[in-house]
């Protein structure tokens, strides 16, 4: 006998560590037969506000788009403005940018460790990783004055040079984190519960991934080697030696393995960057911000964030303010059409884990 379908609402309170959004599920027993993503709880009209502010004022909103991706957003804005204006960036600033972006990536991965495990009821991991994330935030605090929102990578370079002895502190933190990763492996990847709850769950096949425009670890988790840092390199990524890990499983487990390897690659990149960093200026000064205009034109730039490609389309009409800023986050694709498809046939207990694994981030959907 067919069971009667019931409607279940996940959210709009934070479902896991993602942000406010709602997934409306139609369930039979505890199996999902239909899922609908409903967003609209977080819209802050940043893109509209940016049209009303000058180019420098608009920059200060960028890092607020998405909390775990503050630096990639700044990088996008800086590079879009530089592309429209043709402004050169000093070589040292490029290296510092890569170091900051990779530190931000690590900080974001630490949040992911907590979110992914928390969604399966394994809370110790989150306490460890979010605790260790604080060491990275300490570095950011010393460098920029802010722990989460940095406003450091801005058009023309970076805001100020590294403090004295900062490189050594970064290297020390990297040594510490690398040791901790072994502990993380014991707690997470050797955990029978984690294995059992993630293998064969939340499968995104290759064809589905291409059809949906999937990016980042989700794409690499189904065996496709794709990374903006390699495919469309920016700053100095083309001079660095690192690999792009892939897995074939296409499930939560495979994506977790991809991320686990990426953390180690980030540490490797940071060490290389510090080793190769040249001297010189870090900032190609912009004119008086109140009178700063950009030539007419547009630019589309992309960076590889923890969740995958983030892109920004920026248009200047030659005036004091941006004509249009439009950000495309990885979650814009993953959390709506893809999530709605992937959830069908899954168990309701796995919804939160799947959402975390796909990199759901509602602030990216509603900018």
């Amino acid at each position: 006998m067919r069971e009667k379908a019931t409607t279940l609402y996940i959210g709009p309170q934070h479902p896991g560590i993602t942000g406010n959004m709602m997934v409306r599920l139609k369930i039979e027993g505890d199996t999902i037969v239909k899922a609908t993503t409903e967003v609209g709880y977080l819209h802050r009209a940043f893109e509209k506000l940016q049209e009303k502010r000058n180019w420098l004022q608009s920059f200060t909103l960028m890092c607020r788009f998405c909390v775990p991706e503050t630096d990639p957003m700044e990088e996008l804005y800086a590079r879009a403005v530089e592309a429209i204006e043709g402004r050169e960036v000093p070589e040292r600033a490029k290296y510092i940018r890569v170091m900051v972006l990779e530190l931000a990536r690590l900080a974001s991965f630490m949040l992911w460790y907590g979110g992914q495990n928390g969604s399966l009821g394994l809370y110790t991991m989150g306490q460890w990783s979010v605790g260790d994330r604080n060491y990275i935030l300490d570095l950011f605090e010393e460098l920029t004055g802010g722990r989460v929102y940095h406003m450091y990578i801005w058009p023309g370079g970076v805001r100020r040079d590294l403090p004295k002895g900062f490189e050594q502190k970064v290297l020390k933190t990297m040594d510490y984190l690398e040791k901790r990763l072994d502990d993380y492996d014991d707690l997470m990847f050797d955990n029978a519960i984690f294995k059992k709850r993630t293998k064969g769950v939340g499968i995104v096949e290759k064809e589905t991934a291409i059809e949906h425009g999937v990016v980042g670890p989700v794409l690499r988790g189904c065996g496709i080697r794709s990374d903006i840092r390699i495919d469309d390199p920016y700053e100095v990524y083309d001079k660095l030696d690192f690999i792009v890990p892939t897995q074939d499983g296409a499930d939560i487990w495979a994506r977790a393995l991809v991320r686990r390897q990426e953390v180690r690659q980030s540490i490797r990149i940071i060490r290389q960057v510090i080793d190769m960093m040249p001297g010189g200026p870090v900032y190609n000064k912009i004119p008086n911000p109140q009178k700063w205009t950009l030539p007419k034109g547009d630019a589309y730039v992309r960076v590889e964030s923890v969740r995958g490609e983030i892109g920004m389309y920026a248009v200047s009409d030659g005036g004091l303010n941006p004509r249009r800023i439009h950000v495309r986050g990885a979650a814009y694709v993953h959390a709506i059409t893809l999530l709605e498809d992937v959830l069908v046939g899954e168990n309701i207990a796995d919804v939160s884990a799947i959402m975390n694994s796909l990199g759901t981030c509602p602030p990216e959907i509603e900018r």
Partner: protein
Amino acid sequence: MKEIKADLISKIKASFDNVTEKDFDGNRLDFHVETRFIPQILTYLKVNLGYIHLSHISCVDWLEDGEFEIVYIVWSPEDKLKVLVKTRIDRETGVLPNIDMIWRQANTYERELREMFGIKIDGLVAADEFLLEDWEGLPPMRRDFDTEAYADETFWKRPGREDAMDVREAIIERSREEIPDFAKKYSR
């Protein structure tokens, strides 16, 4: 990269009428096309030429021209080239063809265009509301939408700030001093 771009331009121009291209430094190439060709040109790029990744769909409101410019950005992992396909439609009467049968995720972009700019999309099947709820009046991302007037009508002033006085003016009034010249331009 030059050969790839030249090859692409010749292929697109051989298959479609009224296409103009604009080349940029690096791995970017723009095409300006007629709106009615959008589904065909994007299908051609995806199926025949390997531009399998739809990176972005954006819209720019050119209020002074009375037009919206829609920008489709596609990427080829093989050619390592990003192609911007641009088209312009009339702000009031223009209709955009639906492309979510080519890429599933285009559905989300189109829902946002419909809601935030009020663009009609021919053949789009999706729930009416996306980000907004019970929205009436001008779509909010249009250039002629007055954000300040909307805020004044919709929200009430914080108690004690009903007069919406500038902070500097309020301080000056209380301390009975004059606003220094350099600060005057920042006051309302």
